């Protein structure tokens, strides 16, 4: 259990996907304008990551055991198709939920964090439970980064930001500072 918790915490803060591993940056910059949106994006991310982790585990265990070179392509095709189906299902079954979460799903599919999750999980040889904790931790980490960034950006929106920082320049500097702050977690529980 300790091990699982460590996997979760490590994926969440120490090796935060967004701030330490550089995964999923495009949506991180794109969808971090509002806290409400960021929360939903985060939730959608956790959801897709869990699906991904399950799919990757299944593929690794049952389909790709002898053909590791087909991993990348199988992972991504499976994830993309699954997400597309889930998206359609949500759109049909619960338009309200679709409005809340669904519109982010396609954004997430083509997002490094998802495939990165599958690849890291495979490289580290995680089993089902480890994979799930890893996915949840990574998802929470992405959500944390998104929400922090979004609440900061909401505040900045009310500031006199100089003209040249109005494009994403300031947001990247912010991300850099956040990333710096997160280095404080480096080495956590490793000694």
């Amino acid at each position, binding site marked *: 259990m300790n091990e699982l918790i460590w996997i979760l915490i490590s994926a969440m803060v120490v090796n935060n996907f967004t701030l330490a591993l550089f995964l999923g940056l495009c949506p991180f910059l794109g969808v971090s304008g509002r806290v409400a949106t960021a929360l939903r994006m985060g939730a959608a991310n956790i959801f897709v990551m869990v699906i991904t982790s399950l799919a990757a585990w299944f593929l690794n265990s049952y389909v790709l055991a002898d*053909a590791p070179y*087909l991993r990348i392509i199988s992972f991504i095709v499976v994830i993309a198709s699954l997400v*597309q189906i889930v998206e*359609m299902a949500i*759109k*049909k079954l619960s338009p309200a939920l679709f409005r809340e979460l669904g519109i982010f799903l396609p954004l997430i599919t083509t997002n490094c964090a998802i495939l990165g999750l599958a690849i890291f999980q495979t490289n580290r040889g995680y089993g089902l439970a480890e994979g799930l904790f890893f996915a949840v931790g990574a998802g929470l980490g992405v959500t944390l980064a998104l929400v922090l960034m979004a609440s900061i950006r909401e505040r900045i929106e009310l500031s006199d930001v100089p003209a040249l920082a109005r494009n994403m320049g300031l947001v990247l500097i912010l991300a850099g500072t956040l990333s710096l702050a997160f280095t404080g977690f480096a080495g956590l529980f490793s000694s």
Partner: protein
Amino acid sequence: MQPLLILSSAAILGGVGLTFGVLIAAANRKLRVWEDPRIDAVNDMLPGANCGACGFAGCRAFAEATITGQVAPAVCTVMGPDERQDVAAFLGVDAGQANKRVARLLCAGGSDVAVQKATYRGLASCAAAVAVSGGGKGCAWGCVGLADCAVVCDFDAITMNEHDLPVVDPEKCTACNDCVEACPLGLFTLMPMDQHLLVQCRNLLHGEDATDVCAVACNACGRCVQDAAPGLIEMRTNLAVIDYSKIELENAAAIARCPTGAITWLDGMQFAEEPAAPAGSEAR
């Protein structure tokens, strides 16, 4: 070469493709939702100013309305004629016509000719100044010159001149109504470009009470009422009021005897640096 390996690889990926092909096809049958793709297409063609001049809540709403045929593309005054034509061509409808209107100021009392009673200090906004005891301008109806209108104008049509009066560039003005709403004193009005006569004053004082606070105020002397076509101008609560339903009767004689210049003949820009000689001014 290991034929088995090759075959199994092809089979694995083929199988994955097949499985998800089936799943997606099934989902597609059961779960699809449709929306009109033309909305996005038209929306992309619109200027995206979301200014509301068209009377709809933003460009996308306008796009929907054009598709359903509720409005003609020309109702969007921000689009240039070419773009208008593009939208019309895309939808196979007529672009429609829109009469060019511009914002006109109902005050000429710049800091050179109008008196200031007290010095306002505070937020640099007309609305704020007016809320603080009227902003200290001698004329309670006149422009306080802190540029709320210039700031709202999304099209940079308004600049403040050296006497702190807003000057509208008719070229840039799209008649979006923003300045009309922004001015706390209600000093802007949208007027077709082909109407020329305007009383640029709203001061309700009479005679010298009026000209004491502003040298270009309408002091209700009544000369323009007499000189204009009968019924075109009327004196109401100490202010000359033009009946724009009869505007086709206008001619420049109405302004000839105005002692303060409150009534004016507009051609192009209001408060132009060099007043253009109006048609009929020789008649003076």
